[in-house]
C-alpha cells in the first residue's frame, strides 16, 4: 500500500519518516519535502475561509510517474504525507482517508503520553516511545514487492 509515510511538524521539520527499505530512501525524503510546498499552498487557499470547516484530508497533492502523494493536515498544523505506488490503482480515496485517520489516531495516542515532548522525533528504536505508532505504520506499509 503506502510506500512512504511521513509526519511533519508545524514548523516543517520531520517528526517521523519511514519508507520501505527496498527503494532509495533519499528519493522519498525529497518527494516529501517538495510536497510540503503543495500542502502549504492548499492550507493557505482554504485558510482564508473558516478554519473550523477546513477539511483535514487534503487529497492528492501531486502525481508523478511512479508515485502519488497524498496529504493530510491536523488542526495543530501537523502534516501527514503519504506516498503510494501509482501502479496500485486499487487504492481508492476512502482507503487513503481511512489510513490517514488511523495515522491521526495513533499520533494522538503518542501525544497523550506525558513523556513525549511535542516536537520530539517519534522514535521507535530501543524500548521507547512510538512503538505502537511504528507498528501501525508498518501495518500500512505492507510489503512492496
Amino acid at each position, binding site marked *: 500500500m503506502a510506500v512512504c509515510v511521513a509526519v511533519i511538524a508545524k514548523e516543517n521539520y520531520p517528526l517521523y519518516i519511514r519508507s520501505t527499505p527496498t527503494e532509495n530512501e533519499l528519493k522519498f525524503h525529497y518527494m516529501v519535502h517538495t510536497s510540503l510546498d503543495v500542502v502549504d499552498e492548499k492550507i493557505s487557499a482554504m485558510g482564508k475561509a473558516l478554519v473550523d470547516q477546513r477539511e483535514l484530508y487534503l487529497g492528492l497533492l501531486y502525481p508523478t510517474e511512479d508515485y502519488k502523494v497524498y496529504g493530510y493536515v*491536523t488542526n495543530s498544523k501537523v502534516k501527514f504525507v503519504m506516498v503510494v505506488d501509482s501502479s496500485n490503482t486499487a487504492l481508492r480515496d476512502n482507503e487513503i482517508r481511512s489510513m490517514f485517520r488511523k495515522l491521526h489516531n495513533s499520533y494522538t495516542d503518542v501525544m497523550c503520553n506525558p513523556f513525549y515532548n511535542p516536537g520530539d522525533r517519534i522514535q521507535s528504536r530501543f524500548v*521507547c516511545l512510538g512503538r505502537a505508532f511504528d507498528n501501525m505504520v508498518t501495518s500500512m506499509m505492507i510489503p512492496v514487492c
Partner: protein
Amino acid sequence: MEAAAAAAAGGGCGSGPPPLLLSEGEQQCYSELFARCAGAAGGGPGPGPPEAARVAPGTVTAAAGPVADLFRASQLPAETLHQITELCGAKRVGYFGPTQFYIALKLIAAAQSGLPVRIESIKCELPLPRFMMSKNDGEIRFGNPAELHGTKVQIPYLTTEKNSFKRMDDEDKQETQSPTMSPLASPPSSPPHYQRVPLSHGYSKLRSSAEQMHPAPYEARQPLVQPEGSSSGGPGTKPLRHQTSLIRSFSVERELQDNSSYLDEPWRITEEQREYYVNQFRSLQPDPSSFISGSVAKNFFTKSKLSIPELSYIWELSDADCDGALTLSEFCAAFHLIVARKNGYPLPEGLPPTLQPEYLQAAFPKPKWDCQLFDSYSESLPANQQPRDLNRMETSVKDTADLPVSTQDVTGDDKQALKSTVNEALPKDVSEDPATKSGLLPPPPALPPRPCPSQIWAIMNSVAVNICIQVVEWSEQVSEAELLPQLSRAPSQAAESSPSKKDVLYSQPPSKPIRRKFRPENQATENQEPSTVASGPASAATVKPHPTVQKQSSKQKKAIQTAIRKNKEANAVLARLNSELQQQLKEVHQERIALENQLEQLRPVTVL
C-alpha cells in the same frame, strides 16, 4: 464415559433460541469445574470472598484467581483468553457467575478446536475443553489419550513461541529446556501446580515446591521467571535484597513490604504491593475512582530515575485507553512495571495479562475501606473547612492541613508513608486552594464599614442605656452634664474595645452616636428625672468615680458584644469567600469545556 460424553456432545447441542445449550456431559463437567473454582474461592484467601460478598450475597461466584489459572491451563494464548473473558460477560459484571463461567468454558472449547472466539461458535456442537490437569483432579473425563494428544500438540506450539521470544531472554538455555519438559512432566506434578491457585498469597510455600511447573506458553512471556524459580534458594534471597534496596531508594519513605513473592511471577501484583500502589495513588489523587493526569503521573514516575524513553514505553503499555490519564488499575500496572524494570526485568513486548486493567479490577476490587475512607475524608473535609475558616486569624495554613492529615492517619497501614506523601501533597493541597488562601488574607482590612457601624450603634445604644441605668442606680443625683461625658466615654470605650482592624470605623461612631444616644438618653432620663437638658461638659470630679464602676460591669458586656461582632464579621467574610469561590468554579468549568472542545477537534471521530 468418554465416548458417551463425546457422543452426547456431538448429538446434543445445536443452535437454538436459548443462549447456551449444554449437553449432559458438558453440564456435568462444567458444573464440576465451577464448583472447584468456587470452592477454591471459598477456601482461599483474599479476592474471592470479599469479591463474592461485594457482588451479590446469594449467588455463587468463582474467584478470578482459580478461574484464571484454569483458563491458562487450557493452553490458549493470553489474547484469546482475554477475548473469552470479555465475551462471556465476566468483564462486564466483574465476576464469574455460573453463566459467565459456562460460556467461557464453551468458548475455550471453541478456541481449542480452532474456531474463532465468537458467541456464534458456542452455539454449535463442540468437544469438551481441554485443560492440563492431573488425573487426580477428576479432569480424567477428558481421557488420557486426549490429554496426551493435547500436550503433544502443544509442544511445537511452545517451541515456536519460545523462538519468537528468544531475543528477550537474557538467561538462555534453561528456559528452552524447562518449558518443553514441563508439559511432559505435567501429569505427575500438576497437583502442586494446581495448588498454586492462591497465587498471590501463599508464596513462601510454593517456592519450595516444583518451580518448573508453570503453564508454559504463558510463562514464555516472562523469561526470567523460570531461572528465578529454579534457583529458589540463595540467588533468590539476593535479588530480594537488591530489590528492596532499590525500592527503598525509589520512594521518599516507605515500609518494606514482603517482596519475596515477587520472584515467582514478576507480572503479578501481590496484595501488599497493591495496597502500596493504592496508597501512592491516593497521595496523588484522593479519589480512587478518578484519574491521575499525565503531568502529575509524569512527575511522580520521573522520581524513579528511569530513563525517559523507558518511562514513555511503560506509559504506552499501561495506559490502555490512551487518554493521557491513569485510572487506579492503570496506575498500578505502570507502577508495577517500573518496579520490575528497576529490578532488572526487561520490559515486556505487550502488557502482560495480569497487568491488564480489567484483570486488575476483577482481581482486586476496590477494597471497601478505600471507599469508606474516601467518604469519611470527604465528609470530614467540609466540616473541617468551617472551623478552619473561622479560626483563620489564629491558625496558619499548616494547621489547617493538619486536619486532613489527622483524618488519614486513622486508616493507614502505611502510616509513615501516608504522612510523607501527605506532606508531599500538602503543597498541592494548598496550591489547590489558592482562592481560599488569597481569600483569607485580604478580608480583614477590606471589610466594608457599612454594616458594622449600624451594629455598633445598636450595640452602643444598648451599652449606653445599660450604663445609664447603672449610673442611676449608683448615684442619686444624675445630671445631664454628667451623662454627656459618660455617653461620650461609653462610645469611645466601646470603640476602643473593638478590634484594631476596625480603624476605619473607629473614627465614625464616636461622633454620631453621641447625638443619637442623646435622645434615648433623654427618654431614659426623662422617665427618671424630669430635668431639663443641660449642656456643657461635666466637672472632672464627678466623672472620676463613675468610670471605674462602669468599666467593671461594662467590660463583661463588651466582651460578649465584641465576640458577637467578631462572629458577624466572620459571617460576612465567609459569605464573600463563598461568592468568590463560586465564581472561580464557574471559570474553571468554562475552561474545562473549552479544553474538551479543543480535544474533540484534535481527535477526529473514527468510523471504521
